[in-house]
């Protein structure tokens, strides 16, 4: 009886010792949930160019372009004409300002025809998504 009791006490004690660890872990977990932002899988293939721009990205319809020339919108590959018709099907006009998350290594021969197509869709301004030169922040 005595030995059983002491074992129970020991177990209770070891669990009590874990409480600060669990607390810390919960805090870390909360931090990552609140502060971090999820990136979609295809975004990992897109490494935006570096710039010294201080302007943070603004809310705009975002298209992503991988270095091999694939265009992504809302997690799916698409073409600009499909994108425009889908926007119109949703009852939204094609925006005049588009945010383009293109890979830094995308050649001009891919970007420029895309800009020309955007012009035909009456898009007047393109905002290239970039990362800060010094790193990620």
């Amino acid at each position, binding site marked *: 009886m005595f030995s059983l009791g002491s074992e129970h006490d020991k177990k209770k004690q070891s*669990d009590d010792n874990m409480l600060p660890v669990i607390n810390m872990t919960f805090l870390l977990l909360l931090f990552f949930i609140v502060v971090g932002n999820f990136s979609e899988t295809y975004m990992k293939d897109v490494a935006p*160019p570096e710039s010294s721009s201080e302007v943070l990205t603004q809310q705009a319809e975002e298209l992503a372009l991988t270095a091999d020339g694939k265009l992504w919108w809302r997690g799916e590959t698409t073409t600009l004409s499909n994108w425009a018709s889908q926007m119109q099907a949703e009852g939204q006009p094609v925006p005049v300002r588009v945010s383009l998350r293109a890979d830094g290594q995308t050649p001009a021969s891919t970007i420029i025809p895309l800009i020309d197509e955007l012009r035909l869709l009456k898009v*007047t301004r*393109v905002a290239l998504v970039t990362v*800060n030169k010094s790193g990620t922040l």
Partner: protein
Amino acid sequence: MHLQSHHRKALRRISLTPLADLVFILLVFFILETSFAQFREVAFKVPDELAKSSHAESKSLSIQVFPGGKLWIDGQSMALAELTPWLVREQLNTETAVILKAEDSVPLQTLVEAMDLLRAQSLPRVQIQALGD
């Protein structure tokens, strides 16, 4: 009173280890999946048909961009690093429209670097075109 303390004891006996395991797994998942990158943007105007043809040629500066950051401006060749001193020397009007004419294989990174340098010299009106246009 007795019942209550008995109940508390029963609760105490539930091991916290599986909970800790689960929370650790969730933590690792969130660490791997989240990113803290804050993105910036460099905006430019989409060239309209008029600008692409002849208009504003007099008021605009055309810069040809080649791979490796080589530039060709006004009949002279220069590296990307020499652009800033050249712009400072020329003292262009801030209203000047700058047309970057990129050769096919020029990566976007080079164009963004050129746009950065132009913006630093208060020349925000930048357009991108293909070299042949």
